[in-house]
């Protein structure tokens, strides 16, 4: 019995320590690469199961047309880094993948539906509003168009136009924890949670991606 109590004590202490290791919001500024990610087992509705079963990466992956599926999908990409720059009234998040430049207003009382498009070049990615919860940057997004949500973490997850996400960016020195909670009554029976740990890339720079659909699709191999 005693060993069990010790294990529990160690687990609780470790979890408390993990959650206590947060830094200052200024530390979020910088360029980051993905260290690891995890997606909690999705609990899908019948519509979600059906969509996932029918998913074919060679035909349905928007990346093959140089279209970023979602912020969730972008952050699953291992190589291209992400840049965060916080300003007084907004946060800019520049994803190297697909040259996505996201602007998130920090305006108290601004409803998500009234926010500008998060990525003007890609209206399907919806609208975002940010605020701080202590030192954690919290971004709520809605208004995404129905389509593929993820092709890497859990390939073949779909989103509806009713989906709402809450992203939490937690500073921790040269690490940054990001948690995205997805609420979608059409495809998920319960909120889908994706966790990422990012690593600061010292002197990192965002390079041009310049994706061309004719160079991205696998159809180019079939034509030959």
């Amino acid at each position, binding site marked *: 019995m005693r060993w069990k109590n010790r294990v529990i004590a160690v687990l609780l202490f470790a979890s408390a320590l993990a959650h206590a290791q947060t830094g200052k919001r200024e530390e979020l500024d910088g360029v980051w690469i993905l260290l690891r990610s995890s997606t909690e087992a999705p609990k899908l509705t019948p519509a979600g199961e059906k969509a996932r079963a029918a998913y074919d990466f060679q035909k349905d992956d928007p990346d093959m047309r140089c279209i970023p599926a979602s912020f969730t999908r972008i952050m699953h990409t291992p190589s291209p880094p992400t840049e965060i720059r916080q300003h007084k009234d907004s946060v800019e998040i520049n994803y190297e993948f697909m040259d996505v430049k996201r602007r998130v207003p920090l305006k108290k009382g601004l409803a998500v539906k009234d926010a500008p498009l998060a990525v003007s070049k890609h209206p399907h990615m919806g609208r975002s509003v940010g605020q701080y919860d202590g030192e954690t940057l919290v971004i709520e997004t809605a208004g995404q168009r129905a389509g593929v949500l993820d092709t890497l973490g*859990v390939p073949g997850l779909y989103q509806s136009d009713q989906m709402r996400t809450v992203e939490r960016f937690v500073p921790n020195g040269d690490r940054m924890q990001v948690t995205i909670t997805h609420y979608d009554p059409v495809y998920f029976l319960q909120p889908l949670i994706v966790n990422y740990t990012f690593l600061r890339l010292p002197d990192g720079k965002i390079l041009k991606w310049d994706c061309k659909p004719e160079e991205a699709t696998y159809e180019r191999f079939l034509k030959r």
Partner: protein
Amino acid sequence: MCRNFSTACLIGGLLFLRVDLGFAHHSVTANFDQTRTLDVTGKVKKFSVRNPHSEITLEVPKPGGGVTEFHVEWSDKNALLRRTVPVEKIRVGDTVTINVNPSRRLSNLGYFRTALLPDGTILKDCGFAAYRDSVAKGTKITC
């Protein structure tokens, strides 16, 4: 009761401290069979270092004469640049042997692992994991 409570705490604690998994899925894994390798020898017809994936086109001699094209997909340009992979060593016109993971669906496609160059040297790419580890350790990436 006590036992049930302890078990619940243990499970709850483990869930709370859930282990981050590595990249369980990746488009490379979906597209290419990483349990198999294949050596493909041919003349480099074209080499495009670009995003989202670089591509080498080899002209491979056919048994009955003539050539057929084999395509080798590789990392994105920006990643190869950051990993300081000496891609310039692969030159159009050279005959090389490239070791690939074959495509799961297409017989004329594979994913780059190593290249045996005409001078006998082997060009390797350590990949993103080695790059990420070098950043974490503050060291220079070496293959």
